[in-house]
């Protein structure tokens, strides 16, 4: 296939001779020399950086509600101690740090202790350094609660893709019965798992959605 048979040593020599003497310029080797990749940034995609459009354009009308939330008589602000996010929760509710392995986070509840509470919403923060999509991350790592996911749907909150799940545990030997409503939310290198209990109670779910919609970076 290669035309090497046609390029005799004599003709190759003549080409080189003419090339060298014809214009007084030296000829480069036919093999192109590598160049630094930084001169072509578009050719080296590297790590994908995915951003929320409201981070770029926070003044857009659709993003106004997403500004760093301010406390009000009805709402208090939770600020993540690691500075990853802030969100609003009902004023007068109590916060409790959740076990930090393999995730960390906070639970907000309507009573000083978990045993006394009739409603709570928690957020657990998991690492997602590959920035996997939510369904893939959840499939790879599991939901992390005992029970069975009986319903799942994808959606958006403030334009950010989220995954909503309803999880049921009917086994008294495994801490049941209970129903949790889960909402998975991607945030940079983390995935937030929001959980609302009781998961079958409409007003708890509304509260969860309200809280998630106030989530912003500080």
């Amino acid at each position, binding site marked *: 296939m290669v035309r090497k048979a046609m390029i005799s040593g004599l*003709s190759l020599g003549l080409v080189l001779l003419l090339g060298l003497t014809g*214009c007084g310029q030296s*000829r480069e080797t036919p093999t192109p020399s590598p160049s630094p990749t930084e001169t072509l940034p578009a050719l*080296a995609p590297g790590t994908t950086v995915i951003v929320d459009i409201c981070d770029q354009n926070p003044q857009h009308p659709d993003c106004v509600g997403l500004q760093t939330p301010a406390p009000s008589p009805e709402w208090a602000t939770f600020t993540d101690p690691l500075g990853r996010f802030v969100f609003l929760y009902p004023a007068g509710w109590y916060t409790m740090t959740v076990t930090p392995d393999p995730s960390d986070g906070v639970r907000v509840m309507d009573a000083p202790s978990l045993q006394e509470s009739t409603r709570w919403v928690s957020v657990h923060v998991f690492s997602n350094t590959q920035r996997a999509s939510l369904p893939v991350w959840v499939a790879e790592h599991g939901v992390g609660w005992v029970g069975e996911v009986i319903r799942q749907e994808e959606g958006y909150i403030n334009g950010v893709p989220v995954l909503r799940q309803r999880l049921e545990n009917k086994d008294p030997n495994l801490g049941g019965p209970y129903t949790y409503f889960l909402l998975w939310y991607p945030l940079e290198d983390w995935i937030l798992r929001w959980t609302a209990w009781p998961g079958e109670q409409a007003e708890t779910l509304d509260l969860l959605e309200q809280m998630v919609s106030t989530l912003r970076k500080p």
Partner: protein
Amino acid sequence: MRRRHWWLLLILAWLTACRGVLEVRFEREPAPSASPLGKVAYIAGGDVWVADLDTGQQTRLTRDGRNGHPQWSASGEWIAYYKDDKLWVVWVSTGQEIPISEVPVQEFAWSPTEDQLAYFSLSLGLLMWEPGRRDSKMILDPKEGFINHLAWDFTGGRLAWECENGGERHLQVFSMGKAATTLFTAEGMNRVPRLAGWSIDDQWLLAWIGPASALAQADGLPLCLIPATGGPPRCLEQKMLLYADWLSWSPVGQLAFISGGGRETWVNKGLAIVDPASLTVRQLIDPAEQAPIQPAFSPDGKYLAYSAGPPTPVEAAYAQRDTALAQRHIHVIDLSSGQRRQLTNDDHFRDERPLWSYDGRHILFVRLGEQGTSLWLMDAGGSHLRPVVSELTPKPDPMGEYGHVNWQALWDWWRPSLKIR
């Protein structure tokens, strides 16, 4: 006869040496073909080269190692490309390089029928350049907004783009000599259009419509068809990723696309075709069978070539990612029978972006291997594989964007008389 032929070549080599610009080499025998195969513009060492697939001649057109995104003009006489972030063209037959813009250019696109180059610069607006004209012609003032994703229709008569101005997002269409008209305006930030192109009959404008969030777009949006004469968009139900090379038109107006949401290109992806008029979808490959990408209709519309790896269970997506990507090879599906055939199977290579020759007798594709990235040509039946370009550099990151490599940044194929480019 052969000796006389070589003296002509020697003289040609001497003449090109005098220019100090062109560099010519031969790599292989001309490929026998009923119709010309055409030419590939590619990037090697950060420079623009041209490989003539009919003669085997390879010509270096730039020498500063700062170039990328080569795109052919309709005539095959010109190549536009980025030199750093500036737009340049080179006249292929002479090697003459011409700077088009002294300021950064964000988008450019050649007309498919004329040597007309549309480009957008934040500081200059939308302009049109033609060979022989000293200055570009202003199409849209920069104050009119920020433009994304230029797309010519297949006749070259109209140019569409996304326009963002003061938070408003529009799809606009422009015909020469007329003012641009708005075809679609986003209502809020949750139904924002991302232009995908035109239907082959130019009756529809294609756009992915969904939230403006880059997170949402990374996981795919539904593809919608907007009547070119105006009207509400009609959208497919399923999501797909926003890659233009995941769409292919048949000559009779069917659209092949890669279905399935989720940014991971090797997971949960299928191959389907849709009839634009009825939006009837025919699933050709289920995600449980293969993970296809980059469909390409044969010129007669009877076959689809595509690259595909094995299906990857979603729960093992990242654990099996490297294996899944490495096993991408070229396949063809016969649309009348549904029968599939694997055309490449060399485990040393990952094969992607199959493109058909004008006569449908050959397929050009890109190979990633340990030694580098190269372009190969084969007969449409999968025989006579041969490398036609040995090096595409800078070597792209094989992971690309979740397994999608933007090959347009490295090569473009000019096929004589091909309507669908």
